[in-house]
């Protein structure tokens, strides 16, 4: 019993200064934020999209991907699971139904872990936007950082 008490006390005395030193060094701040992705297909119905996102500044980790606001794209889109805990991702989705969105809609939300104080910057590229016939349509993509 005495031996155990001595071991515990020794461990505490060794660990406390080490932990105190670590906390003094100060780890980088970490916060979580959603990044909402919007596509504007104008007057054409959007049936399929694919885009790529990469952080160009700041340190981020992708922690999750969520579907969009319209029923056609509400289900979580396709993405490579290897993109989680990474800073780049390719996301795509399609819908073969008749009820398709037009105009500017939120197609996906990417949940991010932002490490450090630097405000992240992103490069976003829409590689595919197609209508119900599978024909490419002109569309623009943008993002908004949520709280």
């Amino acid at each position, binding site marked *: 019993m005495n031996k155990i008490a001595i071991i515990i006390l020794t461990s505490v005395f060794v660990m406390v200064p080490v932990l105190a030193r670590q906390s003094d060094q100060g780890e980088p701040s970490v916060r979580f934020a959603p990044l909402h992705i919007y596509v504007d297909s104008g007057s054409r119905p959007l*049936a*399929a*999209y*694919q885009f*790529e*996102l*990469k952080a160009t500044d700041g340190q981020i980790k992708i922690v999750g991907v969520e579907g969009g606001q319209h029923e056609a794209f509400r289900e979580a889109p*396709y*993405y*490579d*699971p*290897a*993109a989680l805990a*990474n800073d*780049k*991702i*390719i*996301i*795509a*989705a*399609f819908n*073969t139904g008749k009820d398709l969105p037009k105009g500017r809609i939120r197609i996906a939300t990417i949940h991010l872990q932002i490490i450090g104080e630097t405000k992240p910057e992103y*490069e976003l*590229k829409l*590689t*595919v936007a*197609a209508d119900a016939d*599978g024909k*490419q349509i002109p569309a623009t993509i943008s993002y908004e950082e949520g709280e």
Partner: protein
Amino acid sequence: MTERMEQFDEDLDPGEYSKLSADLRALFKTLRSVPPEVDRAVYDRIHRHFAGVKSSQGKYRRFRWAALWKVAAAAAVVIFAFSLDLTKRSERVTQRPALAEIQAADIDLNGRVDILDAFTLARQIEKTGHVESRWDMNGDGLVDRRDVDTVALAAVRLDKGVL
């Protein structure tokens, strides 16, 4: 010699001393024999005591074995469930396709694998219900939604290069 010792020595009578010695010896003399009734009673009591301990140990052991069997049965059920892949939550295929599958996933033959290949295949399946067997991406003998998922996942693979 102190005053106190002198007092003791003065009154010491040799006859009294020997009587006192004999009394003390009798007092501390051990009992030579225990009556058989007492022996029997002690034996019975011990026997009853240890019989009770044994039965409670048996009960504990039985309980422990029952608990172990329950744990083993639960583990077997979990292993069996995993072997049946009951934990799969959705129908969507989430495994990353192999590189060979990616090359085969160029459904529209435009030299690039993207979501339009999956879209084209999905529309084809929904419209006609009959599609070419070469689009059986996962080799299960059927061309269905799982093959569409395989094509879509090939389109979003990171090692294709991003931006």
